[in-house]
């Protein structure tokens, strides 16, 4: 049983991992097609994974409704919105142009709410910044000053404060900021490659979950 439970998944990960690494180094049409095929396979399996996630969401809300836990009415709202919009989407055949019902919902319900939700962060980010950036240390002060320069450099008032402020903000973005980001990216890439190798050769097995 261990063979089916552990060896087969490890072998599958090894096979597909090595296949994707090898295809990159073989500049042949058939391997380019293989890459395309595998990308589509990934999308297909990912779509099935979505169903698993969806069932978890539905289960959680149905549980709240059944037990009538405080705020269960909101679960009804979530499920109703989900079911109605999904049905509308299938009736509209996924047409997201504003003329179709599905697209109408996207442009007049989903997008405004998404933009409002994210813009709400503008208020909270300001209060969080106040708490985080109080110039307690030299490093925090540097962070605060740079953030202010970048913010002012990206709005017209910045040029009124100091006419070269937009250029200063741009310079910060292009050089010191880029330097730190590049170094972090190098570290991330090395870690990503190491983790991927561990997965392929079967050292990293956390994706198998617990148990046998």
């Amino acid at each position, binding site marked *: 049983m261990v063979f089916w439970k552990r060896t087969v998944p490890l072998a599958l990960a090894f096979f597909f991992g090595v296949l*994707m690494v090898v295809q990159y180094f073989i500049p042949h049409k058939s391997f380019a097609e293989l890459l395309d095929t595998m990308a589509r396979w990934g999308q*297909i399996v990912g779509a099935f994974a979505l169903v698993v996630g969806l069932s978890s969401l539905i289960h959680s809300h149905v549980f709240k409704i059944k037990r009538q836990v405080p705020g269960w009415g909101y679960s009804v709202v979530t499920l109703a919105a989900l079911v109605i919009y999904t049905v509308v989407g299938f009736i509209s055949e996924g047409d997201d142009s504003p003329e179709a019902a599905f697209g109408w919902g996207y442009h007049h319900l989903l997008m405004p709410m998404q933009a409002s939700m*994210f813009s709400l962060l503008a208020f909270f980010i300001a209060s969080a910044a106040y708490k985080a950036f109080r110039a307690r240390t030299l490093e925090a002060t540097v*962070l605060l000053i740079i953030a202010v320069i970048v913010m002012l450099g990206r709005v017209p008032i910045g040029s009124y404060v100091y006419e070269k402020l937009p250029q200063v903000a741009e310079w910060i*973005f292009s050089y010191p900021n880029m*330097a730190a980001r590049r170094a*972090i990216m190098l570290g991330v890439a090395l870690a990503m*490659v190491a983790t991927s190798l561990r997965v392929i050769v079967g050292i990293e097995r956390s994706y198998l979950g617990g148990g046998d």
Partner: protein
Amino acid sequence: MAAEVSEKKLEEKKSRVVILVALVGIFVAVNIYLFAAGRLPSNFEGLGIMIAAGLSLAIYSFLYRDNPIYKFAEHIYIGLSVGYIIVYNYYNALKPNLLDKLFFPPPGERAELWLIVPLFFGILMFFRFSPKHAWVSRWSFAFIVGYGSGMAIPRGVKTMIFAQMEATLRPIEFFDMYGNFNFTAIATLIAIVGILAVLIYFFFSLEHKGPLKVASRVGVWFIMIAFGAQFGYTVMARMSLLIERIRFLLGDWLNVLRS
């Protein structure tokens, strides 16, 4: 004392309900006026603008405090987002890549039978629902994880290591073709110092003392500059969204903005 506290809470709750009902009433009244005055078109477009404005205001009501109107909008948002993802995935991933090619191929074309493989891996995912047979879904995860890892190695090495190192190691030209000093060269030198310093900061195989300590301190400064820049950039992105929403509410909905 306890009775007094609960009475006070009840009073607070009552006043909150009154405020909420009043706000909803004002919203309805404003919309009736807008439609009656012809400021909102009497069609689906106008209805959409009205609902979008209402939902936006419902979300902004969180700035006052967590309240039922905000929660209502928040839960609609969750439901709609998931519904959108389902439909989008079906029409952009599952239908064109699997169903149309395997079960409903165009006339004159043969079904692509090799698609049974991803279909098989996809169906195995559903074994997650059975506690006894959940292990079968490991095969699907092994496919996804193996495929992802195999893709990550060459791409990560190429774009995140080689391309970044190449950009860093380009020759610095201190003078241009006319012999003038090139000030960008100093900035490039600063960037190189920054990259090395940040890398040293994250290098834990040697104790940070002596020159390494100095270098890692410089690295911290560069990291702080980057975090500050990123923070400022994020704040401004959120501000842009906020400005756009205010423009929508004052312009598209209330029609009080001059174009």
